């Protein structure tokens, strides 16, 4: 009896020993959120296969995790000093908090010396650069927010594509009079409502309004923030958004459903929503057309300015990674011509040079054109701000669209949180 236990124990030890010797070959761990539903899934799989074929003895372990749990997972791993070799972020404030903690490899030299930096559109690198140093590469897709609309519905009710805010409100009124919801919006997810707010702040005060407040030279209670809040609440009061807007979820398609069933006519949407529409309802996606967020009379913002992201998903190398050269090489596999082609095929617009030549879809071409014409691209507030403030900002969007907070309260709440965060009191 005792002997057999001892024997089993020995076998157990030997297995552990054996498995570690097999693992002696190099393994790089890659974390991202490219699960099956995401446009980058196939591309990453393919890039790994090609990379492993070219580099015998090196293995990439890909661990995709669903969007929201991914953020938590990465955060916990960073806290436990257990971060993977290569990881994905959304750039901006989220990545910066890891950079400040010394977790992210500064790949400026590698990018510049190899000249690979020219592979990407400049705005894409911008989002992952802090104080002139580069901490990642943009990979998946250019993304911006545009108004999608159904031309057939515009025709039916005899309205034209609006170019100014006033015209947009008039168009909305026509739809309301005919029992159609002007704007499909699902605001339980909060960032969806924030799109309207960010755009209005930009159109009224120009990009510097947010930049100043963010750099703490200005304030989140500056006039454009208040004005934007008032304009949104005017829309809410006239009934321009679906009833129960704060209860509908964007990630469960509850906004797109209104557009599909002709209950709503316009939809302030991201490029990724268009990819989803193509698979959910090809007929509507076929008909869909887009226009820019209209200008506000007397406002300072250029009407070509975009709210969006020049890469959507950015890949960085951790400082803990033992094989940074190899990791950097792998990043070239997920941004090369083959990867670019695969991403375009799955409906994305990779932020690498030459993507426009591959596009064959009218809406995507138009989106790309709007993007390249943009005088300024403002990254979403919730990705620019540090996570704590981003969450406060998103919570206030419920108050704004639900009319339970005044525009002043919305502005004050964020400003107070920012003061506290930056220890200004």
């Amino acid at each position, binding site marked *: 009896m005792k002997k057999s236990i001892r024997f089993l124990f020995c076998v157990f030890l030997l297995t552990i020993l054996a498995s570690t010797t097999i693992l002696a070959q190099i393994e790089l761990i890659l974390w991202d959120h490219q699960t099956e539903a995401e446009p980058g899934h196939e591309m990453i799989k393919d890039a790994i296969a090609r990379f492993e074929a070219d580099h015998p003895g090196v293995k990439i372990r890909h661990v995709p995790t669903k969007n929201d749990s991914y953020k938590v997972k990465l955060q916990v791993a960073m*806290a436990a000093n257990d971060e993977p070799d290569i990881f994905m972020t959304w750039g901006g404030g989220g990545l910066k908090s890891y950079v400040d*903690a010394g977790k992210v490899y500064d790949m400026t030299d590698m990018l510049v010396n190899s000249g690979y930096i020219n592979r990407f559109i400049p705005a894409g690198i911008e989002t992952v650069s802090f104080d002139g140093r580069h901490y990642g590469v943009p990979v998946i897709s250019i993304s911006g927010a545009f108004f999608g609309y159904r031309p057939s519905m515009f025709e039916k009710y005899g309205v034209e594509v609006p170019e100014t805010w006033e015209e947009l409100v008039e168009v909305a009124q026509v739809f309301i009079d005919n029992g159609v919801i002007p704007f499909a919006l699902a605001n339980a997810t909060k960032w969806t409502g924030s799109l309207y707010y960010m755009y209005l702040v930009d159109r009224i005060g120009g990009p510097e309004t947010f930049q100043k407040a963010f750099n703490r030279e200005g304030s989140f209670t500056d006039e454009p923030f208040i004005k934007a809040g008032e304009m949104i609440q005017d829309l809410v009061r006239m009934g321009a958004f679906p*009833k129960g807007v*704060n209860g509908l979820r964007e990630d469960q398609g509850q906004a797109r459903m209104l557009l599909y*069933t002709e209950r709503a006519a316009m939809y302030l949407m991201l490029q990724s929503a268009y990819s989803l529409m193509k698979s959910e309802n090809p007929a509507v996606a076929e008909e869909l057309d887009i226009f820019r967020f209209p200008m506000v009379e007397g406002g300072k913002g250029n009407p070509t300015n975009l709210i969006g992201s020049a890469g959507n998903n950015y890949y960085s190398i951790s400082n803990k990674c033992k094989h940074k050269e190899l990791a950097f090489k792998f990043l070239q596999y997920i941004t090369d011509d083959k990867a670019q082609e695969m991403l375009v095929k799955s409906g994305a617009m990779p932020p690498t040079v030459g993507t426009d030549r591959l596009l064959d879809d009218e809406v995507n071409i138009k989106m790309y054109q709007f993007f390249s014409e943009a005088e300024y691209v403002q990254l979403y507030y919730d990705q620019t701000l540090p996570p704590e403030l981003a969450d406060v900002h998103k919570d206030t969007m419920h108050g704004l669209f639900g009319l339970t907070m005044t525009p002043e309260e919305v502005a004050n709440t964020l400003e107070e949180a920012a003061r506290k965060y930056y220890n200004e009191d």
Partner: protein
Amino acid sequence: MYKTRPLTIVLFILPALTIFLMYMLIPIPLSAFYSLFQWDGITDMVFIGLKNWRELLNDSIFLNSVLNNFKLVFLSIITQIPIALLLAIFIYKKSRINNLLRTVYFLPQLFSSVAISVLWRYLYDPFFGLINEVLVKTGIIDMPIDFLGSEVLALYATSLAISWRFIPFYMILFIAAINGIPNELYEAARVDGANKFQTFFLITLPMLRSTIINAIVLVLVGSLKYFDIVYVLTEGGPNHASELMATYMYKMSFTRLKMGYGSAVAFALFLIAFSLSLLFLNLTRSYSAKKGD
């Protein structure tokens, strides 16, 4: 015959004990300790004394979430226990139709919370949801009701989904307890000429006392630390209207990355749940003692 050595006993207890210590007991004092720090989870911890706690007691969102938790406790107790008891009484006898009903009624308990949340999300949908569709078509209301998006209704709508999930559990508990009541009592009652209501109030209900008390404690603790359906259905929204202590703790720790503050919320949650269950158990115990059970 083997004689069990103490070492063997220890070895057999060890795995379960380790897990219990690591995930249940140790984190309690640890979170009390963390609550004294300002910490984002990555950089160094900064000792700030009781600042988190002072902030917590003035945090209107936290206080509101405590209130929401108590509302949930109250709603759960007045819906789950009576309905479960009623169902149990209807179907405790063994028969073919009752067996079928038991299985059907038990189904909600078998689904995962996330599946239930998604199901209820579609039921509540203001435009395509079953509930609104029926109410509007039958002319009871003329505009769809915004269940999950309204700051007034969100918590109640969520608590309905929670009750739907947990009623079957208590129903099974009561069925087992009712079947455990000795038949002689009912026979004696019949001989004495008691009607159905008398039998229920004078035999079944008193005999179920301890089961009902246990069920209430379970509901109490369960509702105080409740998380999953609320998180998936409303995420505590809109604008914290259906926030519970547990969802608030999660948001503070993992979305806003305030681990110290999150720990303070967690420890406050523990204190409230622990003291309330102790209080309730003591109250019922002293009540039993007085009656001389």
